[in-house]
């Protein structure tokens, strides 16, 4: 089991009110991703749940039990740190076995569990090595192994892949998703990587300055952002924002249109723009344009769309995919 409930949780560091007040419900077995800009309090929130920091106010419940005052180890959670936090003087085997040893499990049971975890994580050949003799991806797997063997009620990940290169990040992302499908244990995952958030999450929690901006499934956030912040944060490349006359014609303070919802043509369209930079990625082409009377706009074209610096192109926003915001930055529902 692993349902977690935050009840008006707040955290103050000295003068800084890092987390004013958060309510959040995490269901058993869910993969929840915390995203938000740097410094918004993602790690802090995770550490509050882990018990590594004391809350300044509010209540944390795990499986209906109040654990607000409980020690980290007593909460039955496992954490994977950004720096992996492996014990440098212990072999991989000892690292993975450490939580079991602390739980005073007997040696034969420990060995069995370590071997099993090593098998799942492809670490069997490396069990006798020290962490310093492993690659980044392998270290990450050891850290995960150390978390798995405890059979926690939930896993906490704090940007676990940020020290890996792009290719390895892709692989590890799949491995962690896979692990979640196998174990069906609650996972809370902190990242500021769009792709990780969109691809892994059952539920995304968008944080900004210690407040929750929106909670929802990835597609839900993509399609129905509640406000400007979420609209701008979710989606890559970012949504284009247009104010002024065009927005007013749509009865809004601000209009938003995603790069993939702009129709491109070489002959005719609503707007005219000059190509500043064309990024040809193969399947897609991203055009960074300067649109007359509007300013910089990013548009996605097919891989076949040939465009170069200085070309004039025409754009037409897909009105059905248009987002409208009022003067408070909230989405106007039709």
């Amino acid at each position, binding site marked *: 089991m692993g349902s977690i409930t935050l009840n008006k949780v707040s955290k103050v560091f000295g003068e800084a009110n890092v987390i004013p007040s958060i309510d959040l419900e995490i269901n058993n077995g869910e993969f929840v991703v915390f995203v938000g800009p740097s410094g918004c309090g993602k790690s802090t929130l995770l550490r509050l749940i882990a*018990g*590594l*920091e*004391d809350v300044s106010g509010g209540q944390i419940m795990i499986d209906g039990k109040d654990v607000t005052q409980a020690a980290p180890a007593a909460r039955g959670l496992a954490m994977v740190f950004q720096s992996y936090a492996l014990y440098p003087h212990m072999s991989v085997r000892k690292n993975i076995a450490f939580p079991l040893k602390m739980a005073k499990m007997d040696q034969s049971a420990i060995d069995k569990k370590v071997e099993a975890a090593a098998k799942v994580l492809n670490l069997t050949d490396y069990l006798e090595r020290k962490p310093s003799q492993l690659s980044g991806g392998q270290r990450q797997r050891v850290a995960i192994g150390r978390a798995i063997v405890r059979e926690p009620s939930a896993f906490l990940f704090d940007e676990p892949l940020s020290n890996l290169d792009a290719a390895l990040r892709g692989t590890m992302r799949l491995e962690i998703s896979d692990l979640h499908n196998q174990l069906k244990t609650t996972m809370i995952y902190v990242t500021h990587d769009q792709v990780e958030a969109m691809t892994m999450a059952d539920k995304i929690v968008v944080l900004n300055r210690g407040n929750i901006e929106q909670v929802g499934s990835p597609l839900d956030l993509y399609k129905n952002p509640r406000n400007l912040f979420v609209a701008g944060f979710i989606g890559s490349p970012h949504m284009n924002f247009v104010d002024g006359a065009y927005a007013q014609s749509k009865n809004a303070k601000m209009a938003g249109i995603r790069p993939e919802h702009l129709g491109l043509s070489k002959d005719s369209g609503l707007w005219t723009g000059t190509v500043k930079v064309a990024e040809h990625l193969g399947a897609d082409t991203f055009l960074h344009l300067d649109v007359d009377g509007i300013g910089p706009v990013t548009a996605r074209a097919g891989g076949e769309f040939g465009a170069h610096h200085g070309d004039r192109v025409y754009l037409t926003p897909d009105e059905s995919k248009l987002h409208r915001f009022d003067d408070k930055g909230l989405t106007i529902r039709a």
Partner: protein
Amino acid sequence: MATQNTKTLARAMMAPSVLLLLVWMIVPLAMTLWFSFQNYNLLDPTQTGFAGLFNYEFFYTDPAFFQSIWNTLVIVGGVLLITVVGGIAIALLLDQPIFGQGIVRILIISPFFVMPPVAALIWKNMIMHPGYGVLGDINRFFGFEPVDWFARYPLFSIVVIVAWQWLPFATLILLTALQSLDGEQKEAAEMDGANFLNRFIYLVLPHLARAITVVILIQTIFLLGVYAEILVTTNGGPGYASTNLAFLIYRTALLGYDVGGASAGGIIAVVLANIVAFFLMRAVGKNLDR
């Protein structure tokens, strides 16, 4: 790591060190301050009672007082000058690729491990002694009169000895800092057409600034209290020519048995050290921030 429990525990763990140092600082200092206003001579029990500023006046008007302060500054300044300049030069040399780097390092660091009285005795008898020292031998070889260093240039001789002891320390630290200078930076500067002198002034010296600060701070702490070197060689003389403040206070206290006077001197020394420390701590505090 910032739960309430850990904080309480942290305080408890720091307590012994902090308390010990607090007592160690306050008790003797308070006693010194107290004595400095008292008539107190170990040889003359009839002298008692409040002395007002007499002890300070006594110390202040002692002709040796200003000379000893001057000598203290000369020792600190002279040794710092020799060790920093010499240290940079030797460090630059050792930063070159050379054969036997390890042994050279060991030879150069050695004087730092020599206890001050031994260092002083070695220099006094083996090197600088006019009759049997090596320098005397060299002079005689070239047909010159040997120089009686400790009689003619007592303060300079002491500066030389102390500098010899601290040169390795400065060299080693500066060398370490030098070696952390990015090779690519040096190469980039070379590509930019900077010659050796330019590279030294604009690249190497700024990079060494932090290390130099550390050298100055740590050496000053020890140099203000140079004692054994003087005791073993000149015993402060001739006259007061090589008496620094530390040595003057020692003379007043344990040779003159004048507790009051020595305490007044001690307080003056504390004030001086604090003035020096104030500037040093500010400099180093900035430098140690990361």
